């Protein structure tokens, strides 16, 4: 193990023990490790933004590109200038124009992303489960394909009903103010089960990844201690 590996190994060991000490309780060591991590990550991100985006796509064109290209960068430079001077308390209102640009852009992207990125593809995926031609081609028995399709449709409709916002009309009891109209309330019971199943499955896979990280850290500590003893 050369000296660089030894140093990085020792640093990793110390940081691992300091962060895992949070399981005992919030302590000074954990805060120290967290501070080092925050500083390093912020510094590295700043380097990435400068080297990979701002330098090649904003500063370099301003220096080396012809004036026509510089002209195209006029508007972004103005927006960036407004953004920077809006950091002074007295000029805060100037920051609204670049942020309005960003909000409009985000709004447009949200609409396009919602409709063309999720709404249509997911709807078509539900409908395509009922592809009779594909059923005949599939290796699984027909009853299972039809069952899967029916369960998919009922499940999706149940979940959409679970999220229904409108309230049940003409309430008898105050408790009913949390209920949906009758038909949506019925379907939402089905939807609840499917939401629970999805969240449970994601919870299990989440635990798997986190568990593997914990096992890796324990293995690393064990290996380092053994190397330490082997070293003397």
């Amino acid at each position, binding site marked *: 193990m050369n000296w660089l590996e030894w140093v990085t190994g020792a640093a990793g060991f110390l940081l691992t023990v300091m962060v895992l000490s949070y*399981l*005992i309780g919030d302590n000074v060591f954990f805060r120290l490790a967290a501070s080092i991590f925050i500083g390093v*990550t912020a510094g*590295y*991100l700043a380097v*990435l933004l400068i080297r*990979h*985006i701002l330098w090649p*796509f*904003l500063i370099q*064109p301003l220096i080396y*590109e*012809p004036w*026509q*290209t510089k*002209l*195209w*960068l006029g508007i*972004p430079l103005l927006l960036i200038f407004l953004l920077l001077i809006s950091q002074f308390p007295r000029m805060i209102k100037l920051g609204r124009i670049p942020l309005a640009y960003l909000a409009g852009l985000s709004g447009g*992207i949200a609409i*396009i*992303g919602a409709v*063309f*990125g999720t709404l249509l*593809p997911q709807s078509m*995926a539900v409908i*395509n489960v009922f592809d009779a031609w594909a059923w005949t081609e599939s290796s699984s028995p027909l009853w299972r394909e039809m069952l899967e399709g029916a369960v998919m449709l009922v499940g999706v409709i149940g979940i959409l009903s679970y999220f229904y916002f409108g309230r049940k009309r003409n309430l008898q009891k105050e408790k009913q103010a949390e209920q949906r109209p009758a038909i949506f309330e019925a379907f939402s019971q089905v939807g609840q089960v499917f939401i629970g199943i*999805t969240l449970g*499955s*994601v919870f299990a*896979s*989440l*635990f*798997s*990844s*986190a*568990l*593997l*990280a*914990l*096992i*890796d850290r*324990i*293995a690393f500590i*064990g290996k380092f201690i053994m190397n330490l003893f082997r070293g003397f």
Partner: protein
Amino acid sequence: MAVLICPECGAENTPGDEYCWSCRRALTDVEPVNDAVQDEPLGGHLDELLNSEEDLPGLLHALRQDGNIDGEQGDAEDVQSGEFHDSLGQASSGQSGREEEIPEWLRRIRQRAKQEKDSIGEVTQKISAAQESLADEKRSSQHESYADWIERLHQDFSQEQVAKDSAEGAPTGKAGQLPQTEDPEWLAKILKVHGKSVEKQDLDSLSTERLGGNSLLQWLVDLESGKEKLEPLSEEEPPAAKQSGDAVGEGDQNERTVDGDTTQEIRIKKGTSVKPVLSISRKEQLEADLISATIVDETAPRAMRKFEKPGSPWVIRAAVTVILITALSLSLFSGASTSNLSGSLKPQHRALITWLEQLPAESRLLLVVDYHAGFEAEMALIAQPVLSKAVQASSEFVILSSTESGVLLVDRLLQDIDGFETLVVSNAGYFPASNFAAFGLGAGIDPSWRFVHAPDAVNGLPQGDFEGILVLSDSYDGAKTWIEQLYAQFSEVTINLITTAQAGPLLLPYYESHQLGGLVSGLSEARQMTAYLNVENSTSHLWEAYRTGVLMMIIVIVLGLFFMSDHEGQETDRSKGEKA
């Protein structure tokens, strides 16, 4: 001395201040208030006391009820009492010689009473004036009798009256005599109440023996301090009494009084209290509500909800931590043998293996790195078998990263694979997932759509033909983003996905809809891949510990079913929530 009174918070500021020292309000539009005290002879205010049309019984009634003086009376007084206050205010704000004895709080109340036109201000101001005058009188001379006082009053009054009449051209009586003026009705009433019946005509021949050497002001103060009792005036029956008959319950009242009837005696049973029905005007009700709203009873139990301590008790937390780490350590370092691998390869695994086996020599692959440093260990376990096969058949890797340390992580990952040295690795740049992916970089934007001379601001997706794309991701969101982006841009190229367990369960449909060539996620699937690719078995020593951890979690969930399922958490909060 003039002062600036801040209209916002009432604080006094020295003239010339731009802002109030207390609440920083601008004082530019505030007029300085003259706080100067003029010397006035002591007697001056006393004749004004007598002279004012003040209805003293009204004051007494107010003292008794400790409430408001009736609205209509109050208005009548406001005008009159205005000057009255000023004079008293000046007098009570202290003769020049006594300013320092009068406490600060009293001077501030009087100052405020001059500003505030509410009933409380008036009463406060009159009581304090009465007390002040009494104190002055005691200090100035002990032996002066009441008669000398009245005598001096008359002389002052006549001089002033003569001066006023000459100004108005009115007929004046003989010098030194009180012009026949209508004597104040209030004085007659007080004297009657005081048990001394005095005929109106004899008012001038008032003498001290009939008043029994007892001064009016002394009586006023005693009344206020409760030593004197005020007997109700006989002819003025309090209106409330008439109505009380109605207010009393049926059982207690023998005969019901009807308007226009002769008055009937109402026998009231012992112990029944006749509840006086207060006739309160709307304005008074609003003021009373305002006062009760502002004075909040600090001691009342507050409706704040003490949250039940939802965090698990420290003991359970420590127990779970110690047991889990001990179990994992034991299974890691005990060198337990790996159970033989069985179970069938899933279709998506088989497709990935087939793709690796059919990779042409010298192929060019695109590697998309979308995982963070925390998942480095898991990704190494899952991706190593696949990459070791891919490296053998490839000549160039183009790396594109969408997480900060993506490029660093994949360099570290490839260094552990033999044959990596011969590989050409080029870095296609950093694509912050949220920036680029959100723009549908690949989904329908043609890279050629660009104005002439317009500079790039985006790393365009690397061009050229690839034999395959490998996406290494640690979350469902990142994987979904890159699958849809790359499928739109490179629909003819096979896209394979290597993800951590966390991303796995929801990505299967992309394989079934043929957007994905192959998919492997999580340690258990990686073990099966390793076995079939017969790559050096790097997952075995972790597998036992992983199984132990997962089985412990299942046990904990089942324990939670039985021991922790008393669901008072939600009920208590709801019941408390109802109360709050």
